[in-house]
């Protein structure tokens, strides 16, 4: 019995020591790709490459080659595996929780990487760099005013990458990314970022194909309208309302093609009401003219759905 207690005590001691190790040590990341060395100095043996935004804990500091060097414990996320290694790297590209303006510096490099990812001929892996940097920034500097935006951008990049992962079936494609989007909503409720995250989630509820039937556009219209009602301050609210209106206009066409004229007219009136709501509620930006264009087409009975199908459009 005593031995058991002793064993439990030792286990607890080890666990708490590990906890202290993580809590006491300075957490950090790198804003440039950095080489990890066995010992301080660029002439020593290399161990691995730490990519921008890699998570690390600073273990020791020293000077070599006339510059500061840090011994770090790095978690290298090289999908599908994660490696945890210890090594030395030059201190200048390491941003720790105590670096002055560290939040701005990491966030700035994340924006730069995101910009690179969007450019033709931009740096390879720049989107993943941006994702790591944004998520690391929110993790290292949770009190920063940039933390909610950073967490949201990381989750959104993950979402966009998942969307383009055509190797996975549509039903499972967003499974991992959804967790991060939900985290943004939970951590920053009632924020602009939570509104945007909630908008991303609507995508999982859309039909892959309407098959020329009214069920899907009707369901999608209701989903978008509900979003606009629940998030009236969201920057995505007018877009959601426009999408709801456009789907009602599509339903108008589908019912008319099927000679269901009463239902067609009801859908037309609903689309009109939604489009008019955009024009009055959101007079700025492009949504008012786009709503006016849709109102004109509905008023003049210009088909929107069949024309869009013919042209291969998606909305």
């Amino acid at each position, binding site marked *: 019995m005593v031995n058991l207690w002793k064993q439990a005590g030792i286990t607890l001691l080890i666990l708490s020591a590990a906890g202290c190790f993580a809590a006491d040590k300075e957490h950090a990341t790198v*804003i*440039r790709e950095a080489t990890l060395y066995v010992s301080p100095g660029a002439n020593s043996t290399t161990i691995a490459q730490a990519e921008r935004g890699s998570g690390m804990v600073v273990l020791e500091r020293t000077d070599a080659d006339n510059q500061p060097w840090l011994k770090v414990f790095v978690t290298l996320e090289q999908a599908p595996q994660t490696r945890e290694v210890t090594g030395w790297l030059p201190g*200048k*590209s390491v941003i720790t929780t105590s670096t002055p*303006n560290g939040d*701005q*510096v*990491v*966030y*700035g*490099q994340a*924006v*730069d990487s995101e910009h690179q990812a969007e450019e*033709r001929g931009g740096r390879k892996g720049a989107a993943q760099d941006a994702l790591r940097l944004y998520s690391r920034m929110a993790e290292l500097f949770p009190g920063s005013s*940039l933390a909610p935006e950073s967490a949201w951008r990381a989750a959104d990049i993950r979402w966009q990458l998942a969307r383009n992962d055509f190797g996975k079936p549509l039903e499972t494609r967003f499974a991992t990314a959804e967790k991060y989007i939900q985290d943004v909503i939970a951590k920053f409720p009632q924020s602009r970022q939570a509104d945007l995250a909630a908008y991303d989630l609507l995508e999982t509820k859309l039909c892959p194909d309407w098959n020329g039937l009214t069920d899907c556009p009707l369901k999608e219209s209701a989903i978008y309208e509900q979003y606009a009602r629940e998030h009236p301050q969201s920057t995505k609210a007018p877009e959601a309302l426009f999408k709801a209106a456009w789907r009602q206009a599509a339903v108008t066409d589908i019912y008319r093609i099927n000679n269901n004229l009463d239902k067609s007219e009801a859908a037309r009136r609903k689309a009109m009401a939604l489009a008019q709501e955009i024009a009055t509620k959101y007079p700025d930006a*492009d949504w*008012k*003219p*786009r*709503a*006016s*264009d*849709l109102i*004109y087409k509905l008023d*003049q*009975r*210009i088909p929107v759905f069949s*024309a869009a199908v013919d*042209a*291969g*459009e*998606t909305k």
Partner: protein
Amino acid sequence: MKLRMLAVLLAASLFSPRLPAQEKEQGTVIDEVTMYVSPDATSQKLARATRGRNVPLVMDRTTISKQAWAHVLIVVDVDLERETERQITGWVPSKMVITTATPNGAEIIFGEAADSESQAQQRGGRKHAAEDAMRLYYRIYEYFPNSPLAGEALWRAADIRWQLEKSDVRMRPSSREMDPNMRDSMDDQNMKLVIKKFSHSKWADLASFDLIDNKLCGSWKGETKCPDKEAELYEKYAREHPQSPKAAEALYNAAWRMGALVEMYKTQHEQDKAEKARRRGVELAQEVASKYPEGDWKPRATELMYALQQGISTYDADQARGK
């Protein structure tokens, strides 16, 4: 006397079209339409007119079997390469034609243009949607010059044309030429029109920013004169257009080029010049951070400042020289 009479008649004939032009019903089509010989969908087809095509004249209107028709003159492209045009007259469904007489006409065309622009940006969006958007935006400026949307519409039309040409120019081998005069430029006519017609506006500021593209080196080839000149161009823009939405970006671009110069001078072992460029880069980045605290430019400038202060490379000079 006869000569004077002739002169008066000539003057009258030259200026007379301008007066009726203002009364003429003119506009564009907001969807792809088929033109017919007569106001009847079973009659002979003449041509297809795409969104935004110029309708310089609506000649007649009629209603047959509850369907309203318009007899229009439409300008269509014949040879896209040679930019030749042809004018065709024919009948189209009236509802597809938005003219100067259509209530809320400018807003409807702008909405259709924005819709086409959005299509052009989507994966799998409608083919030639960017060109549709460009034409539709331009019609607003052309036929609704007093609309509050006219300035933005002309700017958007000019910018779409600019981006399309830029992407085309970049595909050519000459795009890697260092000297901007040695490569094809983007046609600046519409940008200059924005600046002239809407001077001191946000749209003129944006047009001026785009025009810098024509003055940039295709490739630096490790020569310091390129980033040096470009930094100057961007800084000049920021000083001359402090209210522009592009002012922060211009100042950042100038600072970033100074950062690149630091690395280039270092590889050439010109430490004094490298240090001078570093100090200038820090100054410019500090200015971005203090003058434009909103948006992404402040953190980007802070990161650049940090990199310059810590001696972190912001530009791979060796790689750029092809080493």
